[in-house]
């Protein structure tokens, strides 16, 4: 029991008290929740792996996105993390391929180009079918530093390198936006 609570407490968003509540909740629903959860965790631990092409997490390698023949091979969208890729997939706005870097260059934490999945991206971008690489790294100093670094590395690949637009989000009110976003939005203004 203590081991179960200890392990649950390691999950994001759970402390020792909430882990105890979750453990109790699971134990009271042994057949309907605890056993299926244990089976699902076991299956996930056995089968989910990192895609050798893009870095996504999936039960097969290459992953579902890389293996999908209906996707556009000429576009590669570069993201920092698997969560960013899933966010773009939820939008259903992008039908190309992805590449997960596994983080961003960090000024202080010692994350350098060799720690990221950049060489594989350069190799993929060099293939004849790829025409554009979209850099969808986070709009932070580290994220944009990473984007500029990748753009330099891709210069010799002969592909178009683009980045996501920055500015006012859908449903955003100007009064509530920070000055940084407003300045970016003004710089990226377009004719209406």
């Amino acid at each position, binding site marked *: 029991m203590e081991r179960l609570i200890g392990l649950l407490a390691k999950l*994001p*968003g759970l402390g020792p008290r909430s882990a105890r509540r979750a453990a109790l909740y699971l134990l009271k629903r042994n057949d309907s929740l605890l056993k299926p959860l244990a089976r699902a965790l076991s299956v996930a631990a056995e089968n989910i792996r990192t895609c050798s092409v893009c870095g996504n997490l999936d039960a097969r390698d290459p992953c579902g996105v890389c293996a999908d023949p209906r996707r556009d091979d000429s576009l590669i969208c570069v993201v920092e993390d698997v969560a960013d890729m899933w966010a773009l997939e939820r939008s259903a706005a992008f039908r190309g391929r992805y590449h997960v870097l596994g983080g961003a*260059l*960090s*000024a*202080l*934490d*010692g994350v*350098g180009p060799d720690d990221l999945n950049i060489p594989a991206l350069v190799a993929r971008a060099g293939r004849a079918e790829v025409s554009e690489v979209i850099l969808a790294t986070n*709009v*932070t*100093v580290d994220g*944009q*530093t990473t984007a*500029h*670094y990748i*753009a*330099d590395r891709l210069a010799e690949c002969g592909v178009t390198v683009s980045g996501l637009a*920055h500015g006012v989000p859908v449903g955003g009110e100007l009064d509530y936006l*920070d*000055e*940084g*976003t407003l*300045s*970016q939005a003004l*710089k990226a203004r377009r004719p209406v």
Partner: protein
Amino acid sequence: MDWTDQGIVLSARKHGETSAIVSLMTQEHGVHAGLVRGGVGKRSRGILQPGNTVQAHWRARLPEHLGAYTCELVYAQAAVLMDHPLRLAGLSAACALVETTLPERESHARVYESLLSLLAAMAGDHWPADYVLWEVEMLRELGFGLDLGCCAATGETENLAYVSPKTGRAVSVAAGEPYKGKLLPLPGFLLAEMESVEDGQVLDGLKLTGYFLERHVYAPHGGEIPPARRRLVERLSRAAG
């Protein structure tokens, strides 16, 4: 105890689920870290970008505690420089250098003012030379100032072209000629204001300051020059061709 001060964000590291440990270069309290609750949330993430100026309120039960910050944005410098690779590299290098060289909780008002001026200058075109001059100022503030007033060998004040890697003192062209392979080049813009500074001179300046930063500041503690500064030098070298 608590205080309010203006500061420049040097770094923000995620702490736990929602908080961030933020390091600021403050006007009166020097490099000072603190916890920002909700610091990785949507509202705060944009504010806590390196280079941004914030109005910070620090509060803790005891002065030696980490304490908690509440930060309000004063000026979003990071957003201004984000689209320019070289300027962004300069911003990252300057913030990393301040965070890794200055002792915490020790007032360095001159460094605060000079960092603020440097970040403002980065919006212009001649900032690489300003960056080198700022690093020379940093060395002075850290107690390892270069002596570029006169030649260490002959005492002459004209035709200074080298710096001795042993003493950090300037050496004239004539006195340095036999040892020029061992001496560090001294770019002219460190001696007198120049209208335009070539990329090669900026790189010489970075080599000079980098040598003394490495030798006097980082090596004694087993540290290394921050990767951000190395990337700035690489980027400038590529730009210079």
